């Protein structure tokens, strides 16, 4: 037998469920999953890896859209496969009956339970919507293709 240096895959999965705390972290009063939300941002906004939390700055506005966006359906717990931990919303993000006249190209997923802390910034081709529906369908929830991967 030989030993192999590695970060344990189980640990990666546990990062997605807040099992470990190396520093100061929020006190959790429940074991329930947090609530995550998805907000749309204008193409002129500047969201990136440095984004730390949801902000209304640069967020879209228009008929039928509520600031802060919509709640993400989180029906599937994080999982691991191989050496990757992953998670994907369990349903498409659907903004119904909206008019968003200024071009937008980004969705921010953030944790509304934990002070609106940012999770990820996802970009797509610039769009507008007129009295219609904007649907963001998620990739397959599997290692390598899931929306979030800790590889």
């Amino acid at each position, binding site marked *: 037998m030989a030993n192999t*240096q*590695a*970060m344990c895959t189980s640990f*990666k999965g546990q*990062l997605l469920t807040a099992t470990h705390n190396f520093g100061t972290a929020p006190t959790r009063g429940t074991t329930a999953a947090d609530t995550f939300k998805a907000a749309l941002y204008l193409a002129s906004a500047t969201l990136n890896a440095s984004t730390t939390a949801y902000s209304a700055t640069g967020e879209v506005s228009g008929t039928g859209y509520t600031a802060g966006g919509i709640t993400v359906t989180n029906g599937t717990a994080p999982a691991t496969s191989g050496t990757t931990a992953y998670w994907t919303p369990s349903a498409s993000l659907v903004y119904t*009956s909206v*008019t968003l006249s200024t071009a937008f190209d980004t969705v921010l997923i953030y944790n509304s339970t934990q002070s609106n802390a940012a999770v*990820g*910034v*996802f*970009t*797509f*081709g610039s*769009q*507008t*919507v*007129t*009295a*219609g*529906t*904007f*649907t*963001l*369908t*998620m*990739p397959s929830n599997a290692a390598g*293709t*899931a*929306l*979030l*991967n*800790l*590889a």
Partner: protein
Amino acid sequence: MLVTTTKGEMDDSLLEKKEGSLDNDNETTTWVEYWLEGELVHRSVHVLLKKNIVAEGIQAMLA
């Protein structure tokens, strides 16, 4: 078929329909538009995200 428009629900037979799509490494996007006498009165978009985010830097660096 009734279509929700900026002027309320309208029968699609009264409208000009335009569709388009885009497919690249990042996304597959389709959209449908309805026009009334040169005015855009409905536009819906469907984006399938292909590109995820990967935290590949998570490695035990104890060398």
